[in-house]
């Protein structure tokens, strides 16, 4: 017991003496643990909220859209094998002026069944009340829209749907499982103020939309074990005569897909980052304990001479490593809980669940903790093993003096070309190659993390510039409820402020090649269009060639096709035949999967004559208000977007979203660089303090001594830069792959600014470590070295 106490006391004293080194290593472990805890906890919280909300509101499994299907088909749809329930509704879109907003908002009006509690995709009331089923002018609104557009209960709004004005009073705010995340159709970014979703009793919507006894959207609840593919096929078959478009499963539902992508990203964070931290922490524990064991070799020999076993003699060092692990784990748990709560706060702004409580994932914490303590123990075990294996007699002798050799440098650099201080630096590096290697690897890992994360800002700039200033050059775009004659563009051209307008025909499609199939969007453009162009990798506009299609490079990649190959195109809007078309070129774009073709070719395929589904415009900025008021009065125009709004919203959302995660990355990377730099320099100082004090006595200034000590760190830091840049680019390309969604692919663009940001953060972390260690040179005891043997 007495012995145990003695060793405990030694443990506490060592911890205190090495407190900064312990802190630096524990910080790394804490980072690893906290990322794991944060990611798994956030995932757990989101999934719990998602499960509960979907279950409470009976979120559907399959969705379909038609132009106008009679209610009698609902019975046929319900009889499809595997369908447990079908819920048919009316959904109409229009534009709407919201007081306080310049640009018109999109209004989606959805019919409520007589008994809302018996349907699918139920809304969840969070404020006010549900509309009176008999009322023709009451509606509930999506709470996110009300919050963002500053619309209050009791406000009256008017939209034009189906050619008729529909005016209603907001009586309640609701949340909906279909609109947990509401991206704007243009940018895939949330734009809540311009995304109005309203639910009104069926009679009111029916009357405005002119869909008496009919529906145009239907959702399905499937029985357990049902075949989704079979249901989709049958739904398409039944709805085909009624203008049915391709039915889709939950995984393709916009809001759900965004949520799932976010959950996947959390798993990526949890898988990529923590191992980096643990490996670096284990390496540092190894270096620190190796030095400690080296300095205490004689004590180990003494303990063994007293009759301690190898294990008992090794125990203090293993316990020290374990203690470092435990300190890190506790810090990581606290930090992870805090980060989890912080990220939950961010998610609340994106994902609207009635309840989104922060969770703490204990199993993830325990798993990360165990891995951390084991990593620390493994690091120290390797260092201690060699020392405890020595016989006591050998261990008690002072270690053999360090044997240096003339190394590579001496062969390369002639005798007097290098000063002795620099020579000392190089010889030390050559003598401890493992330590130098571990240090370079650790610093390179830190820089990689910086380079591999900071690129996103430059990439976003590139993406915005490419998408909104080079490929698309319109200032405003409008969408039609249904296709209109191409000549209607001339009406639009006459609206106030419009000085250019080009028609566009967009249709949903399935593209097949090489046995693969992808859902994509066909964009039919004018051959001489100037407001939207397909650009190649070099940014040059690509001309259309006959019937040929131009594919998004990403889509071509998924289908494994190249220019010259053919693809089978099935347009799912309307009744176009299935055709095989040649691919003539690939376009570089970053959002969605597009098939570009000449509008005339698309119209010919669909046999609809000269029609357009929307138009892209140049609108004079000072006349924008008048332009908007004019299009609000045109019932056929159901969507309006502005490039400036889209870009500024994009920037706002992205910067907000990435500011937090990039702050984590910078913080974590700085922690690694600091931890590695501090520990290596601190160890170097403890080994060389006698040499340095001797040099001080011999007339070296503190600055010159600092150079000898920290020059090594400088060399290692410089050596880490090329490796870190290479690793960072590899990490960036991995992250681009991992984080790319169908809706948004990040281009891998490294800019001088992002490199500069990474290198500065890297340099600052190393400099901080250098200053902390360098300060100790000022406190060297010069007198002591005169009398002590090493």
């Amino acid at each position, binding site marked *: 017991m007495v012995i145990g106490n003695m060793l405990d006391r030694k443990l506490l004293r060592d911890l205190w003496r090495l407190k900064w080194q312990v802190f630096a290593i524990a910080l790394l472990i804490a980072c690893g643990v906290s990322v794991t805890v944060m990611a798994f906890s956030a995932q757990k919280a989101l999934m719990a909220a998602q499960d509960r909300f979907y279950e409470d509101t009976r979120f559907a499994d399959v969705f379909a859209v038609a132009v106008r299907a009679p209610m009698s088909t609902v019975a046929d749809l319900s009889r499809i094998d595997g369908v447990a329930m079908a819920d048919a509704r009316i959904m109409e879109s229009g534009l709407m002026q919201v007081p306080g907003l310049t640009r018109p908002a999109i209004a989606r009006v959805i019919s409520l069944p007589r008994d809302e509690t018996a349907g699918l995709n139920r809304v969840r009331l969070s404020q006010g009340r549900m509309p009176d089923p008999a009322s023709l002018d009451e509606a509930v609104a999506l709470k996110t829209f009300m919050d963002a557009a500053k619309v209050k209960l009791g406000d009256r709004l008017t939209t034009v749907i189906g050619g008729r004005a529909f005016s209603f009073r907001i009586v309640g705010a609701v949340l909906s499982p279909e609109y947990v995340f509401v991206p704007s159709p243009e940018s895939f970014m949330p734009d809540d103020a311009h995304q109005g979703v309203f639910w009104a009793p069926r009679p009111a919507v029916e009357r405005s939309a002119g869909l008496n006894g009919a529906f145009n959207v239907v959702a399905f609840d499937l029985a357990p074990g049902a075949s989704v593919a079979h249901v989709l096929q049958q739904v398409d078959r039944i709805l085909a005569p009624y203008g049915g478009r391709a039915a889709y499963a939950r995984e393709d539902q916009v809001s759900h897909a965004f949520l799932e992508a976010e959950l996947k990203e959390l798993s990526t964070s949890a898988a990529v980052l923590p191992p980096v931290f643990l490996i670096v922490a284990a390496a540092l524990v190894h270096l620190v304990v190796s030095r400690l064991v080296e300095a205490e070799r004689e004590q180990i020999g003494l303990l063994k001479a007293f009759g301690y076993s190898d294990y008992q003699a090794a125990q203090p060092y293993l316990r020290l490593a374990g203690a470092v692990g435990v300190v890190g784990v506790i810090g990581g748990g606290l930090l992870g809980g805090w980060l989890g709560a912080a990220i939950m706060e961010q998610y609340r702004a994106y994902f609207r669940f009635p309840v989104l409580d922060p969770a703490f994932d204990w199993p993830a914490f325990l798993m990360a903790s165990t891995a951390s303590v084991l990593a620390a123990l493994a690091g120290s075990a390797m260092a201690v093993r060699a020392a405890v294996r020595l016989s006591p007699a050998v261990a008690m002798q002072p270690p*053999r*003096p*360090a*044997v*240096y*050799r*003339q190394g590579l440098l001496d062969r390369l650099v002639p005798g007097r070309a290098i*000063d*002795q*201080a620099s*020579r*000392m630096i190089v*010889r*030390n590096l050559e*003598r401890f190659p493992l330590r130098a290697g571990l240090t370079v690897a650790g610093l390179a890992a830190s820089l990689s993390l910086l380079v591999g994360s900071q690129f996103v800002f430059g990439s976003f700039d590139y993406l915005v510039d490419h998408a909104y200033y080079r490929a698309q050059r319109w200032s405003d775009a409008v969408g039609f409820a249904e296709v209109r004659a191409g000549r209607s563009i001339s009406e639009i051209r006459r609206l106030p402020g419009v000085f250019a307008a080009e028609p566009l025909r967009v249709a949903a499609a399935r593209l097949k090649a090489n046995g693969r199939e992808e859902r994509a969007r066909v964009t039919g453009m004018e051959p001489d269009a100037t407001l939207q162009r397909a650009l190649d990798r070099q940014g040059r506009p690509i001309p259309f060639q006959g019937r040929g299609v131009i594919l998004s490079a990403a889509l071509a990649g998924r289908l494994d096709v190249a220019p010259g190959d053919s693809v089978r195109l099935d347009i799912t809007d309307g009744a176009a035949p299935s055709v095989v078309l040649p691919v003539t070129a690939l376009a570089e774009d970053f959002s969605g999967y597009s098939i570009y073709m000449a509008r005339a070719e698309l119209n010919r395929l669909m046999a609809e004559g000269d029609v357009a589904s929307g138009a892209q415009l140049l609108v004079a900025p000072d006349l924008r208000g008048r332009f908007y008021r004019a299009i609000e009065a045109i019932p056929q125009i159901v969507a309006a977007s502005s490039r400036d709004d889209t870009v500024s919203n994009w920037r706002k959302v992205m910067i907000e979203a990435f500011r937090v995660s990039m702050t984590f990355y910078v913080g974590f990377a700085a922690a690694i660089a600091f931890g590695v730099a501090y520990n290596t320099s601190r160890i170097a100082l403890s080994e060389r303090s*006698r*040499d340095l004090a*001797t*040099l*001080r*006595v*011999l*007339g*070296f*200034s*503190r600055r*010159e001594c600092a150079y000898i000590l920290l020059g090594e760190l400088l060399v290692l830091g410089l050596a880490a830069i090329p490796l870190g840049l290479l690793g960072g680019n590899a990490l960036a390309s991995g992250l681009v792959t991992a984080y790319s969604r169908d809706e948004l692919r990040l281009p891998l663009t490294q800019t001088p600014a992002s490199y500069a940001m990474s290198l500065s953060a890297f340099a600052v972390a190393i400099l901080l470590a250098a200053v902390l260690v360098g300060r100790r040179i000022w406190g060297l005891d*010069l*007198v002591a*070295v*005169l*009398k*002590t*043997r*090493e």
Partner: protein
Amino acid sequence: MRGLTKVYETEAGAVHALRGVDLDIRQGEMLILLGPSGSGKSTLLNILGGLDRGSAGKVLFHDQDLTAATEHQLTLYRRRSVGFIFQFFNLVPSLTARENVALITEIADDPMTPEEALDRVGLSDRLDHFPAQLSGGQQQRVAVARAIAKRPKILLCDEPTGSLDSEAGVRVLDAIVDVAREVGATSMIVSHNVEVAAIADRVIRFRDGAITEVAENRDKRSPGEMRW
């Protein structure tokens, strides 16, 4: 030096390491400081070497007042004027004999070459050996070469033979005496070893922080004539 006093404040109270020491040192003479452990001789050496400052009193080196010097001035003083020889050699293990000497000649104002310095201590054939490849006596002679290569005005040796056997110790003292004379340095050797006093011009005895005796050595011998 006049009235040199050094008091260390410790938890156990004030320790008087030097109690008002007065001493004049002549250019080029060889002084031996004798005295038991804790008598204050090393403290005196440290203050003379610019490693420490007295608590009271004055130390003048030529016209420079060491007691009033800044840290930077003391660093320059050590760099230009003082040669140090330590009991445990304190060579830089990662540098060869030549490089250990070059370490100092690179920062000195008017040094001899490392080869010349090592030649003077009889180590011309060990230029490219690392400390670990040299015997204790050879290492200490490298230290002597390192100390005198800058042509110091004052050479301070703290128990230079303390960790050497008699034969090696004699060779080291021989080297110190010879090269100190050649460069005209004033030498001060702190020692436990009474025998060493034979090579001095003057012998100073210390006890309890004060000089008890300053004796001229009328029978000065060369180190080669000594044995211990």
